[in-house]
C-alpha cells in the first residue's frame, strides 16, 4: 500500500528554493530507442528479426545470432524480482538528495535481466513484478518495477512522483477557459486533485456557455490573459509565474481554408499570433519561473503542455493555414523542450485529430470530444509521457506519417483518404 500523499505544508520563505540536479542523462544513440518509445508511454526492447531474441541493455547487434536486424518491440513487462537493494549512498547529486532509493534486479519472462527503479509496493525478492518504462527527470527512459496490481494511491509513490507530473496538489495555469476544450481541461484537473487552477480569459465581457460552471469551482481563479498581447502575458507572469507548477497552453485560433479560398493574410496572421507567437510569449514569460522551481518539494514545478494538432506533422490543405501555424508551434515546442529539459520540466505535446468543435463542423466523424482531450492531458501528466496523439484520426495519420510522410502528403492533398 502506498500512503496517500498529504497536502504539503506551506513553503518556508526563509529557506533557499532547492535547485534541480538532473539524474544522469547521458545515453548512447541506440539506447535512445527506449526513450523514444517511453516518450509515448510504451515499454519497448530490442527484438532480433532473425532469431527473435529479446535483449537488454540495447546493443548494435543481436547478442545471440549477431544479426544487425534489430527492432524495437513492445513488451508486456512481466517478470520476477531476483534481488532488491536500498541505496543509502549515491555518487550522483540527484539521487543523493533523494536517498534512500530502492532498486531491483528483474528477470523478464522474455529473457533479459533488468536493473529497475522499484515501486514501494513491490515486496522483497522473489516476487512477481511488472516492468514499465518511464521518462525520468532528465527526460531519458528508465525502467520501473511495478506491482502486478497497484493500490489506489500507487501514483503517490515517492520514486514514481519523481518521474511524473501528477496534477495532485499542483497549481496549474490553463491559458484559455472559454472553449469547450479549455473547460473540460479545467474540470479534469480539479477532479485530478489540482490545488489551484488559474484560467485565462482574453475577453471577459463575452458571456460564453459553460464559463459559469467552471468559475463556480472553489479551485478555479479566473485571470485576464491575452496571448496576443505581450504586456498581458507579462503582467500575469509577474503575478502568478512564481507559483505555477504546470502550464497548459490550449489557446488557439482555428479557421478553415487554405491559400486560394481566402484573400489576404489577416486570418493567417491571427492564427500565427495565437498559435505560434502566443506560445512564444507565454514561454518567454513563464518558462524561467517554472525552471527555477523544478526541485521545489513534492509539488515542484513539473510540466508544460502544448495543444498542437496532428496537422502539425503534415499539412491538411482544407485547413491549410491552421496546419502551418501548428507546424510552427510544434517546431517551437521542440525548442522549448530542449530548453526546459536541463531543469527537468517535462514538455508534453498533444497532437489531436479533429476536435469535435464548431471549426471542424464540416468534417466527418470520428472527432475527438473535448473531454477526451482533457483526460489525455491528465493521463499524460500522470504517466510522464512527452507526445500524445489522441483520437482515432490522429493515431491513423501518425501511423501513415511514420510509414511514409510523402505518401501521407499525397493522401492529405486528396482529402485525407
Amino acid at each position, binding site marked *: 500500500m502506498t500512503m496517500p500523499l498529504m497536502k504539503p505544508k506551506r513553503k518556508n520563505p526563509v529557506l533557499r528554493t532547492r535547485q534541480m540536479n538532473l*539524474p*544522469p*542523462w*547521458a*545515453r*548512447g544513440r*541506440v*539506447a535512445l530507442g527506449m526513450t523514444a518509445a517511453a516518450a509515448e508511454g510504451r515499454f519497448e526492447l530490442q527484438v532480433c528479426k532473425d532469431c527473435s531474441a529479446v535483449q*537488454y*541493455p*540495447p546493443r548494435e547487434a543481436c*547478442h545471440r545470432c549477431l544479426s544487425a536486424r534489430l527492432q524495437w518491440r513492445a513488451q508486456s513487462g512481466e517478470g520476477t524480482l*531476483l*534481488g*532488491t*537493494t*536500498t*541505496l*543509502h*549512498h*549515491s*555518487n*550522483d547529486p*540527484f*539521487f543523493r538528495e533523494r536517498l534512500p*532509493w530502492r*532498486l*531491483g*534486479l528483474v*528477470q523478464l519472462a522474455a529473457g533479459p*535481466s*533488468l*536493473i*529497475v*527503479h522499484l515501486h514501494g509496493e513491490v515486496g522483497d*525478492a*522473489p516476487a512477481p513484478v511488472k516492468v514499465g518504462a518511464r521518462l*525520468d527527470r*532528465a527526460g*531519458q527512459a*528508465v*525502467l520501473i518495477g511495478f506491482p502486478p496490481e497497484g493500490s489506489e494511491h500507487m501514483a503517490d509513490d515517492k520514486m514514481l512522483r519523481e518521474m511524473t507530473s501528477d496534477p495532485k496538489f499542483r497549481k496549474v495555469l490553463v491559458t484559455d477557459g472559454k472553449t469547450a476544450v479549455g473547460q473540460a481541461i479545467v474540470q479534469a484537473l480539479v477532479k485530478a486533485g489540482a490545488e489551484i487552477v488559474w484560467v485565462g480569459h482574453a475577453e471577459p465581457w463575452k458571456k460564453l456557455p459553460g464559463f459559469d460552471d467552471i468559475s463556480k469551482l472553489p479551485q478555479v481563479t479566473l485571470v485576464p490573459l491575452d496571448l496576443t498581447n505581450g504586456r498581458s502575458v507579462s503582467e500575469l507572469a509577474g503575478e502568478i509565474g512564481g507559483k505555477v507548477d504546470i502550464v497548459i497552453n490550449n489557446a488557439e485560433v482555428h479557421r478553415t481554408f487554405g491559400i486560394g479560398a481566402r484573400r489576404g493574410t489577416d486570418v493567417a496572421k491571427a492564427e500565427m499570433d495565437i498559435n505560434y507567437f502566443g506560445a512564444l510569449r507565454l514561454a518567454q514569460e513563464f518558462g524561467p519561473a517554472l525552471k527555477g522551481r523544478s526541485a521545489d518539494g513534492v509539488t515542484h514545478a513539473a510540466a508544460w503542455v502544448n495543444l498542437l494538432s496532428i496537422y502539425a506533422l503534415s499539412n491538411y490543405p482544407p485547413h491549410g493555414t491552421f496546419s502551418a501555424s501548428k507546424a510552427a508551434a510544434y517546431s517551437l515546442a521542440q525548442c522549448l523542450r530542449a530548453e526546459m529539459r536541463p531543469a527537468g520540466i517535462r514538455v508534453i505535446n498533444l497532437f489531436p485529430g479533429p476536435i469535435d468543435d464548431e471549426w471542424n463542423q464540416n468534417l466527418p466523424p470520428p472527432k475527438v470530444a473535448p473531454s477526451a482531450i482533457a483526460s489525455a492531458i491528465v493521463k499524460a501528466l500522470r504517466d510522464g509521457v512527452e507526445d500524445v496523439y489522441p483520437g482515432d484520426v490522429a493515431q491513423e495519420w501518425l501511423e501513415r506519417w511514420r510509414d511514409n510522410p510523402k505518401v501521407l502528403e499525397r493522401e492529405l492533398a486528396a482529402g485525407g483518404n
Partner: protein
Amino acid sequence: MTSRRTSYEGVAVAVPVTVPYVRYSTHNAHWFIGQALHALVEASGLAKEQIDGLTVSSFSLAPDTAVGVTQHLGLSPRWLDHIPTGGASGVMSLRRAARAVQAGDADVVACVAADTNHVDSFRQTLGSFSNFARDASYPYGSGGPNSIFAFITANYMRTYGATREDFGRIAVAQRDNALKNPNALFKKPLTLDEYIAARPISDPIHLFDCVMPCAGAEAFLVMREERARELGLAHVLVRGAIERHNAYADDPVMLRGGWRVDRDELYAQAGAAPADIDFVQTYDDYPVIVMLQFEDLGFCDKGGGPAFVRANTLTHDGSFPNNTSGGQLSCGQAGAAGGFLGMTEAIRQLTGQAGEHAVPGAKLGLVTGFGMVTYDRCLCTGAVILGASS
C-alpha cells in the same frame, strides 16, 4: 573439441613491487607507472633498456594507452600490450607476458598496473565506465558497483542461506592480515561486531563490504626461468593459468563465475588439487565474490561457501590463508592495481618476502582475477597457480 594448450612451463615471475598507496593523489597515472618501473629497475638490477616487453593496465591513463607510456617514460619495447581489464588485468597480463617470453617475442616483460585517484575521479569513472553502465545501470541510483553487488549478495544470501556474519569473517580476517602489511591503508583492527554495525551503503552491502578507491601501483617482471636464474632474481614459476569472459551469460543473476568452466584444466596443468594449494589470493571487490571463488575453484561445493568460512580461519596463519596482504578490502583499491595486488602478494609469499604476514612453508599459491562490471555482473575471470622455485 578445443585444442590442447601449450604448458606454461619455464616461465618465471619475479620482482614484485608496490608503489605505496595514498587515498588521493594530485599525480597522474603516468607518475605511478613511472615509479613502478623505477622500482622494478632498482630491485632487479636491470637496465631500463633490458626491459623489452611491457603491459600496462590503468583506468586513469586516458587519453593515452600503453604506447603513450613508452614515449612518456623513454622505453622502446619490442612487445607491448594494453590490458585495461581492471580486476582481471593481473592474471591476463601474466598470461600474455608468459606467452611472449616463451615465444621469444620478449626477454623481460614488465607488467604494470597503476591508477591515480583525484578527489572526483571515482564518480567520473562510474558513469562512463561502459556503454551499458551509461545506458542501463548508472542512471539507476548511481551507486556504482555497490548496488550491483548488493543484488548479487542478496540473491546469494537468499539462495544459500549465507548471513552477514559469514561475509564478515572474510573481511575481519583480511583486516587481521592487513595489520601486518605496512602498505595497507587500513591500520585499525576490525571486529565482527564493528563489521555488522557498519552503516548500510546499499543493502545488504555495508561499509566494510566495500573497497576504498585510492591511488597506487603494482608491478612484476615476467621472463624465462633460466633468465631469472642468470640474473639471480628470486622468482616463482607459473604452474597453470586460465581465463574466461562473459561466462554463464544466461544466468539471470551472478551466482557462479567463469573459473568453474576452466578449473579442471587449471589444476591439471599444475598437476595439483585444491587441497594442495597453500594459500589463495582471491579478487575481493566484495566478500560475496570471495565466497563464490571458494566454491567455483573447488575448495568447497556450490553453496558450501558459508559453511566453509565458518569451518576455516582465513588469516595468513590460519587453516585457509586468503588475501594475506589484507586484500583490497583492507589495503585499498588502487584502480587496476587492485587486479595485481594478489599477484605481487603471491610472489612475495613464495619467495620469502612476505614478512610478518607470511604463510609458513608455502609452496603453491593460487591467484585469481575478476574484472569489469559493464552491466549487471563481472565479465572477466581468471586464475593462476604459482609455485615456489625449487
